[in-house]
């Protein structure tokens, strides 16, 4: 039995040395390298915001509202006199938390449903995939707005709403991968060795679906950051006074003529964040699976 299992066990798509090799290849990949550099920068901003910020992001100074860049406030101040640079630095937290957490939740739900659909087949498969199609045929932003309105404002509700939209991509990818490898000899061997359905799904089928899932995760993080800021821009995101890029953009937009940086700076950060994760995803696709090259836009 033990020997049998050793023989049937699949080499994980990303073992330790594999991960190192992938990182090295990513660094050589120009756009992915740029993406990773930006992501590191965002992480540093989010983690060290209290030390990097010149001011308390929530400290109001009503005598100095809507000011342009100065030595005291490098990016100027917002409509209630808060330091814009500090708010932009702190804003990285919300974007990253929403982006990473909602992607993680979406991946877990999607992968689970995709594994079950692909492995079990039949009615269960039909049901899960029709559910996927149903959610997918309403554009994410619209569904997100309605859900945000239904659940009420707040960061956790935004994360729930984005996860509830994002899982479909992962379910589709996982199912497709499972269907591809389900009938291969090693899965049959595992079944013959008496492995349970769950064991086959998580030990044998999942590791072989990793490459496209990792690519999709990276792109989904970017998409989630974009969705969160879009919702915040429409006033349905995180509630003030929490510093958030989308919220700053929404308020700053009304003062575009007086203090352009108020909206342009947080907007640039959102763009950079989305761009970084998309570049990373593109690089990961090239590195992990050359066959998928150029098909990335279908994952959206």
């Amino acid at each position: 039995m033990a020997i049998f299992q050793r023989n049937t066990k699949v080499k994980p798509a990303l073992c330790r040395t594999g991960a190192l090799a992938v990182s090295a290849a990513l660094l050589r990949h120009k756009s992915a390298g740029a993406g990773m550099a930006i992501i590191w920068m965002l992480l540093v901003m989010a983690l060290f915001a209290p030390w990097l910020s010149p001011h308390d992001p929530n400290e109001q100074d009503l005598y100095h509202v809507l000011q342009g860049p100065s030595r005291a406030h490098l990016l100027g101040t917002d409509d209630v006199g808060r330091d814009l640079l500090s708010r932009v630095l702190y804003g990285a937290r919300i974007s990253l938390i929403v982006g990473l957490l909602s992607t993680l939740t979406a991946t877990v739900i999607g992968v689970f449903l995709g594994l079950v659909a692909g492995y079990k087949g039949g009615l269960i498969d039909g049901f899960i995939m029709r559910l996927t199609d149903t959610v997918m045929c309403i554009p994410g932003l619209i569904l997100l707005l309605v859900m945000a309105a239904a659940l009420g404002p707040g960061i956790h509700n935004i994360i729930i709403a984005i996860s509830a939209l994002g899982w479909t991509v992962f379910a589709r990818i996982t199912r497709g991968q499972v269907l591809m490898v389900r009938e291969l000899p090693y899965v049959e061997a595992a079944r013959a060795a008496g492995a349970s359905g769950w064991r086959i799904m998580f030990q044998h089928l999942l590791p072989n679906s990793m490459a496209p899932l990792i690519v999709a995760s990276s792109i989904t993080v970017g998409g989630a950051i974009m969705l969160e800021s879009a919702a915040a821009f429409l006033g349905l995101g995180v509630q003030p006074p929490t510093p958030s890029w989308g919220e700053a953009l929404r308020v700053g937009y009304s003062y575009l003529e007086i203090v352009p940086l108020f909206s342009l700076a947080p907007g640039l950060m959102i763009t950079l964040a989305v761009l970084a994760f998309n570049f990373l995803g593109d690089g990961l696709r090239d590195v992990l699976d050359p066959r998928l090259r150029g098909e990335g836009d279908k994952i959206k």
Partner: protein
Amino acid sequence: MKRYIAGRLLYTFVILFLVSILVFILARLLPGDPIQAAAMINMDLANQEIIQDLRIRFGLDRPLYVQYVIWLRDFISGDWGVSLGSGEAVFDMFFKRLPVTLELFAGSVFWSCLIGFPLGILSALRRNTWLDAMVTATAITGVSIPVFWEGIVLIYLFSVVFHWLPAAGFVPFAESPLGNFTSLLMPSFVMGTHGAGLFARYIRSSLLEVLGQDYIRTARAKGLSEKAVLIGHAAKPAMIPVVTVVGLAWGYVVAGSFIVEYMFAIPGLGRMGVDAVFLRDFPVIQATLIMTAVNVLLVNLLVDLIYGCLDPRIRIQ
């Protein structure tokens, strides 16, 4: 082919049915029921007795599945309810605003083609050169830039700094063709750049695939110029997958129009949807969600059918 079409039609109807259930549930999840929402806007309704009376009249006291069936029946027969905000019939509202969004879409497809096609073809022909890398990076950037930021940058440049274009607002074509053109120039460009990125990437991969085929080698081998090979042999088959991109762009446009129409104050479907979400305007939200899904599904169906016609291999699967 008949079986293929029948299968696609059946699938579309099943998904539509599921969408209607999803939308119905979502609308019920919104806090407060339609009568209460109406009461908030119109204070005459604040009386509890009247509210109860109205609940019975609108069938809100009945079990959920009965409400669903009634709602679906009404919806199919064109009775989409009355907007809680404006008191207008939602059906009329929808079709009054549709042309504006369609115009915006036409403009955005124009920009997508204008930018996306040359970039895609160029990067396929210069594969794996710095030019190709640049185009790919540009395409990803185009897809990644949030429409609201791109919009703000353009408004800042062209309205605030240069005063060339109006910052917001919409002028109907009948009123002033030129005003109509300038009022849609920026919003359609903002929406078009996202599509342009998609177009460029699809055309690149599709053209590369075609250029790798045997018959292209044959055409080259018999001494045709590269131009003749491209135009006479590669262009047509490479255009097939582009059908999908236009379909994708159309699905995106409705979502994109939510933000773009809100930013540029254009009275289209997107603006209607955003306002409805703000006001908790149930009937309008329901209609917007359903019609968005119908639209996406119909375009997908159309794309599949066109594909089936163009590529016999698909029909058989």
